[in-house]
């Protein structure tokens, strides 16, 4: 198992943002976490990434138990892509600088060739290299964020709603890029989203969260076929189907 989470709880004061969440993800697998806003899905991801140190329970990465404070070696194995590509890139740093930072921190050589290769890998033209984030589109920025996460060669990528801030047309491109990269590099993904379509596109297994608890885990196939056990899963599924239908109707009307 690449990632094992047991009884992970995060408390803010007396309220639980996440409570006794347990799941595991095999190497090279994609695990999706869905839920409404405030269901604790991003909280789980941030605790996993080491951005939030106030949690209890057990987290194992590659069989090793990790502590709330992470060392540099952890960050070579696990990286994260944020939801908002407008907020996740330093506004005063060129793309070149953003991509070279992980290499400088980890003391990795050949910065020049690695950056050029990384841009090619996420299908960005070399001309974007010395631009500032405000000179790029949302989709291009998210590609930069993905490239930055991959710079130090991680095994696990934590994806926090990586497409929800993007145009629908760009969403598909970024999702395809993510699945290509996974195939090529054998990455393990944990994808958090409120969009069932996005999650079932990328992930074979899905955990459903409600009110800080993971109420059900099921395969994407079961979800699509409607073989759900928990009422909240069914409610989310029905909502997503209805949205798709109204979208389709709007498409016809237009």
């Amino acid at each position, binding site marked *: 198992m690449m990632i094992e989470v047991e009884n992970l709880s995060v408390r803010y004061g007396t309220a639980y943002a996440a409570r006794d969440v347990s799941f595991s993800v095999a190497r090279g697998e994609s695990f999706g976490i869905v839920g409404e806003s405030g269901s604790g899905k991003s909280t789980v991801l941030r605790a996993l990434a080491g951005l939030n140190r106030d949690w209890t329970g057990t987290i194992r990465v590659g069989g090793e138990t990790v502590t709330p404070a992470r060392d540099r070696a952890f960050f070579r194995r696990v990286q*994260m892509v944020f939801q908002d590509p407008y907020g996740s890139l*330093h506004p005063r740093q060129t793309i070149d600088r953003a991509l070279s930072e992980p290499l400088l921190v980890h003391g990795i050589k050949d910065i020049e060739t690695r950056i050029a290769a990384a841009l090619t890998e996420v299908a960005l033209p070399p001309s974007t290299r010395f631009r500032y984030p405000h000179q790029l589109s949302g989709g291009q920025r998210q590609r930069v964020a993905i490239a930055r996460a991959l710079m130090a060669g991680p095994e696990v990528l934590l994806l926090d709603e990586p497409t929800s801030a993007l145009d629908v047309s760009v969403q598909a491109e970024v999702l395809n890029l993510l699945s290509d990269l996974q195939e090529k590099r054998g990455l393990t993904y944990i994808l958090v989203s409120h969009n069932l379509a996005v999650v079932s596109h990328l992930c074979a297994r899905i955990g459903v969260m409600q009110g800080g608890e993971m109420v059900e885990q099921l395969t994407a196939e079961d979800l699509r076929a409607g073989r759900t056990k928990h009422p909240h899963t069914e409610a989310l599924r029905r909502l997503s189907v209805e949205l798709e239908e109204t979208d389709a109707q709007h498409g016809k009307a237009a």
Partner: protein
Amino acid sequence: MTALSRREWLLTEAPESRRQAAWGRAYRGWLQFRRNKLAMAGLVTVIVLVLAAVFAPLLTLQDPSTQDLAGRLAPPSAQHWLGTDELGRDLYTRLLYGGRVTLGMVIAVVVLVAPVGLAVGTVAGYAGGLADRVLMRVTDIFLAFPRLILALAFVAALKPGVSSAVFAIALTAWPPYARLARAETLTIRNADFISAVRLTGASAGRIVLRHIAPLCVSSLIVRVTLDMSGIILTAAGLGFLGMGAQPPMPEWGTMIAATRGFILQQWWVPTIPGLAIFAASLAFNLLGDGLRDVLDPKRG
């Protein structure tokens, strides 16, 4: 390289090197700054004042301390362009040399104060917790006293002179910068781009120095430029009260203090250094306003 192609090189949308990207960014800022006429007037005045101070020996043939008691308090003439003071010293010469002292004090204060304020503010803001509380309470203690009074007390405790005046003004001037830098740091410390740097495994020092501080610098520069007039006035005020530069050293505030008794009969004697203080303060203020329009991200 022709002028046009250099402009194109700077304004290209696809720079080919780090250097080109940085210069292009600076050039865009300059183009924006240049549109502001008042700010340009401020910049030119500041440059002229600094150059006049630096090249004072070339701009005048007289010595700032040579006395001529027979020709004291003379009105402007061909020999003494701005007249003479109460000891018959050439006012124009003293004004130029006084600029060295006054502007030198201001620059020394800024060089001392800005890095300290930036360091205290960013560290307090990023570290949070106990470090933040301790650093901010210290800042509050310094802020609790009126600036000039505190500076006066420091100088009186040390010994009147230029270097203790600089030190005293610096001690009283850094807290607002620390506050400003801390406020800026608090707004960006939880931004995703800082989280992303933390996820590379970078040390806290590296994050503060390379990622947070550069974002605080621009608003700090603006604030410092706007405060320069205040620092000039404090420096001049200390000089006026006899706690700054000591005679016979020419300093604008001291020059006013020494000749204030002649304001009704020989009005130009104290007025001329006063005008110099006024011009320098106004120029720094205009420059700061212009810089704010260019550098402050919150204003577009």
